[in-house]
């Protein structure tokens, strides 16, 4: 087995089963969304109109939940030393970590998003664009989140620090993601924001592993 396959398999198993995983993020997503009608009032038309923006915002916040453990648990129990001494460079291991985060958290959230939208009264025809935006936007959330998680290594209250580092960087995907869904709902050009969102997600996947590895090395030394 190649080094990358070995670490990816481990990361998937850890984030799928190791407490939390998709269920935790999904539970958070559903719980917050169910509070929306209570906060905004029972006006169905108003809820349906706000649904894409709200759902997208909750998607971004839900992705923060399991980030704190992404590097911290390996840092605390010494596994990060072992990972740093492995056959694959730390950059590739960081890529595997963020990719596992995307598979186990972002992808389930993206698949659940249309259900949430429909529950808030938005039409089902938004489902394909919502899933597509959730998947590519989730790449951005997972990889930028990984940078925040690596930078916060060893600090107390890492979770708060991660949110402070990462949330400003979530601005573009939130704008383009919610924008694509709203444009689609209004019959406007939705391809441009979706393409910009994809560009952002792919650029994050390509560049963030270097930042994650540098931050992790710094924490180890």
């Amino acid at each position: 087995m190649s080094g990358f396959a070995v670490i990816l398999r481990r990361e998937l198993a850890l984030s799928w089963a190791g407490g939390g995983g998709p269920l935790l993020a999904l539970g958070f997503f559903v719980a917050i969304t169910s509070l929306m009608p209570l906060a905004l009032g029972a006006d169905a038309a108003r809820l349906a109109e706000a649904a894409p923006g709200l759902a997208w915002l909750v998607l971004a916040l839900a992705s923060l939940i399991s980030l704190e453990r992404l590097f911290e648990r390996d840092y605390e129990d010494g596994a990060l030393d072992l990972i740093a001494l492995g056959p694959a460079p730390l950059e590739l291991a960081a890529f595997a970590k963020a990719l596992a985060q995307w598979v186990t958290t972002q992808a389930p959230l993206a698949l659940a998003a249309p259900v949430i939208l429909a529950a808030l009264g938005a039409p089902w025809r938004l489902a394909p664009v919502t899933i597509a935006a959730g998947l590519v936007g989730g790449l951005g959330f997972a990889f930028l989140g990984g940078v925040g998680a690596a930078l916060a290594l060893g600090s107390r209250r890492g979770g708060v620090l991660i949110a402070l580092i990462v949330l400003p960087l979530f601005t573009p995907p939130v704008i383009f993601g919610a924008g694509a869904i709203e444009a689609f709902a209004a019959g406007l050009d939705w391809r441009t924001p979706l393409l910009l969102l994809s560009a952002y997600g792919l650029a994050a996947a390509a560049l963030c592993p270097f930042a994650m590895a540098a931050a992790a090395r710094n924490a180890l030394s």
Partner: protein
Amino acid sequence: MIKGIAIRSLALARGDRVLIEGLDLDVASGEAVVLSGPNGAGKTSLLRAVAGLIRPLSGRIAIEGDLGEIPLEDAIAREAHLIGHQDALKTARRAWDEVLFQVRWTGGTADSAKAACARMGLNALLDLPVRKLSAGQRRRLALIRLSASPRGLWLLDEPLAPLDRVQRARFGELMIEHLARGGLILAAAHDPLPVKSRTIEIAA
């Protein structure tokens, strides 16, 4: 294959404090060197520096291979094991899953992991979650990768601490075999290793 380590006028610092200055040390193939000294003298830092995890303040660490010097990063990625005082095991996972990851990650296979577990008498524990194991049992799991994925350089930080007398003797056999194959051992230890070794004092 690593033929030797040559450390020349090495200085190491943690934060503002200089721990080690002007250290020269050679470890040759087939040799075990024990770093001895009081707590906080810099034994762990020296091991981590040889593992490439800490950048020295000055001086250099050279790894010699069959065909001359190997860049430290390559040598470590292919030829070194570091056993720290933490065992790098996830408490919620099954012992076997964790051992299998550690062994595969360092270049071994499922078969070599199984053979090593049988030899260390760990088979009965492999289905348990790591949480249920004692400190000594966890350390034995972490030591599995030493024999299951052959690498020339063993960097050991207090490897014997949680082991009982029987396990220390078993681990001693592993070390003797490793040295006989031309391996190198650099260990930080307060108790003498159960193999013939050279001791280097690290002053505080």
